[in-house]
């Protein structure tokens, strides 16, 4: 049976949260999840006070709109702050690490959407602030919370499931990898990569753990790339970045191979677990069935019902990532998925990609 939620008004205790940012992403993907979490939205911030006011009114924070983060924190005293803003510094870096630090220093737990920072060093600094303040910090790496990826992770980790050790992993995602090294934070390719690298690498992180080394090849036109990778756990990985794919083809395809078993996640929502089994000897077998206990298992959401599980906010893990954070924050403990350490691993890969195609690169341990 799938996990259940309570509606916000049914919860015994509700976390008082403020939201920083009024992007379309926040409007579509984070704020609509609030009714299904034990939270109360108490204030909105955006540099555009008009938008902050509109969002506050629409999502239940009344007239608590701010264009000054410090004043919001001082006047509203939220227990937690969620950050999802596209605002940038003049050099093209995200302002999000600054906001995270500001909120942690004010005593708030923080959930920050990707990109939580623009460099690995910024994340290392955030880890220091988090550890000093003792607050809970969650990073919005949605592919780590896809229900399909969570189930794939559970299958891989559960000895009883029979997957064995992860041997190899292939992930297809149309990432815009920078065509050469030395580009600035403000470069379009670097910004695009920073905005999206979380998706394929987050998926790989969830299923295979951190990467140890990467090796990028780009096509002659600098459009598409393939990234060979080695996981610290010993598995090997392949990433295909088909940026010039058709606009009507699915973005994602993931395949994890174990020891006589494999898992395919197609288009984010469909999972097939091919269990360890064989239809019979080569060349003499006239049907392809196995005993039921060895048959492939396929799950995909039922899409005709007014269910939460077929809503994109839950198919894409937004709801799960926020729920995971809220539960951790309420219990004053760290998150275990979408940690700052996970964000650091993603940004190390981003920085390797930003060095451009060429030699195999070892990623730093920390």
């Amino acid at each position: 049976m799938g996990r259940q939620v309570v509606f916000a008004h049914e919860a015994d205790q509700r976390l008082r949260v403020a939201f920083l940012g009024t992007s379309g992403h926040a409007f579509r993907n984070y704020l609509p999840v609030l009714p299904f979490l034990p939270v109360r939205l108490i204030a909105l911030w955006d540099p555009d006070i008009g938008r902050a006011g509109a969002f506050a009114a629409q999502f239940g924070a009344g007239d608590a709109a701010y264009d000054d983060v410090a004043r919001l924190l001082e006047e509203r005293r939220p227990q937690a702050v969620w950050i999802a803003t596209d605002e940038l510094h003049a050099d093209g870096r995200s302002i999000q690490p600054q906001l995270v630090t500001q909120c942690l220093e004010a005593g708030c737990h923080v959930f920050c959407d990707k990109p939580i920072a623009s460099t690995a060093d910024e994340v290392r600094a955030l880890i220091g602030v988090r550890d000093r303040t003792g607050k809970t910090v969650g990073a919005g790496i949605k592919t780590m919370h896809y229900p399909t990826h969570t189930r794939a992770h559970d299958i891989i980790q559960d000895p009883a499931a029979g997957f064995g050790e992860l041997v190899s992993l292939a992930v297809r995602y149309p990432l815009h990898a920078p065509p050469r090294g030395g580009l600035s934070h403000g470069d379009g390719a670097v910004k695009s990569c920073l905005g999206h690298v979380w998706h394929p690498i987050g998926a790989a992180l969830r299923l295979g753990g951190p990467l140890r080394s990467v090796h990028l090849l780009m096509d002659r036109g600098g459009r598409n790339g393939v990234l060979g990778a080695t996981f610290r756990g010993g598995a090997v990985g392949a990433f295909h970045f088909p940026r010039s794919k058709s606009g009507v083809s699915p973005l994602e395809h993931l395949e994890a191979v174990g020891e006589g078993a494999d898992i395919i996640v197609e288009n984010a929502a469909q999972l097939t677990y091919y269990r360890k089994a064989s239809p019979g000897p080569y060349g003499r077998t006239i049907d392809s069935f196995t005993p039921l206990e060895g048959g492939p298992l396929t799950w995909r959401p039922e899409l005709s019902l007014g269910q939460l599980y077929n809503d994109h906010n839950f198919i894409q893990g937004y709801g799960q990532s926020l729920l995971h954070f809220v539960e951790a924050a309420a219990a004053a403990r760290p998150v275990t998925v979408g940690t700052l350490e996970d964000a650091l691993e993603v940004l190390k890969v981003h920085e390797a990609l930003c060095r451009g195609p060429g030699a195999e690169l070892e990623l730093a341990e920390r």
Partner: protein
Amino acid sequence: MDFGFEHEYDRRLRVALVGCGGHAYRNILPALNYLPVELVATCDIDQRRAAAYARTFGAARAFADYGQLLAWAPEAGIEAVLLVLGFKDGLPQYRDFAIGAMERGLHVWMEKPPASTAGEVQHMLAAQRETGRTVQVGYKHYFFPALTKARSIVESEEFGARTSMNATYPLRLASADQRAAPPRQPINLDLCHPASAIHGLMGDIDSLWFDRAANGGGIVALRFVSGAVGVLHCTSGKSGTSPNERFEVIGERASVVVDNVVKLTYYRPGKRGRPEEGYGRTPEFFGPDAQAPIHWEPEFNLGQLYNTTSFLQGYVPELYHFIECVWGGRQPDHAGLRDALHLTHLYEAFRAAERNVVTLPRLEGAPQ
């Protein structure tokens, strides 16, 4: 191609089958039913097997000695041999069989892998050029209907330049110890399948690099002469119940996927939603019909040719192409010795390509 039943063709190529194993029994001989051929003789070192195969598939004579078959060929009017040989001491044994047939004026169709060294292929190429015979290798993936269709798509103007690809195949990469003892590498047989599929779709390979997992699975990164890049996921640890292969090619705002041999989806250049809608403002996932993805797969309910193994896996098309080339006095467009040489170079490159970029010898007439 206009296929008929064997007995309906006005003209039939007289052939002998050499090598009576399970593959020939299941896949090659049944394919002859739909080809303009006449099976005149069989040959195997096991005379009883050769005789049994001759009876079952309608040949008049059975031989246990290849030399005797070749000596008898002119008298019997045999025009070509189909070589479906097993490995000897772990190595393909086609070179001497193929050259022997060519020297007696016979055309040659041989199964893959044709050789374990590029030198063997060079010898066969020299004999082919000297005798002028048609020679083709049974790289069936060049002739899978779905891959053939995909090739026509990726070569179209609409698709644009091929920019990248990914493939899945349960290849088991040889260990360093095995690679250090050439020419035997366990991957030779299996490599033929994804390598010929990828080559057919993408053209000549410029270089490769691979990383091997402990069980022999791994990943192979490829750069093509055209400038495109690709990755092959070697899924040797996969379940016995999951499909072996999937190929995807990316063009310029278009892509094509061939899944499990028979399912082909062409994602044409296009966009979901209306043209004026920006990201995050598109309420429905349809776009113009002219940009909709196209999907084909066989109907499996009917007793049709197109859903039989002989056609789905390219056996009839590849042999038909061979016969056309024999009658046309030319070499095959695909799966000839030039392709065989390139794919054998690829096989040889695996010896040194573990976490090293290895560049393949460049051949004339690169299909790109």
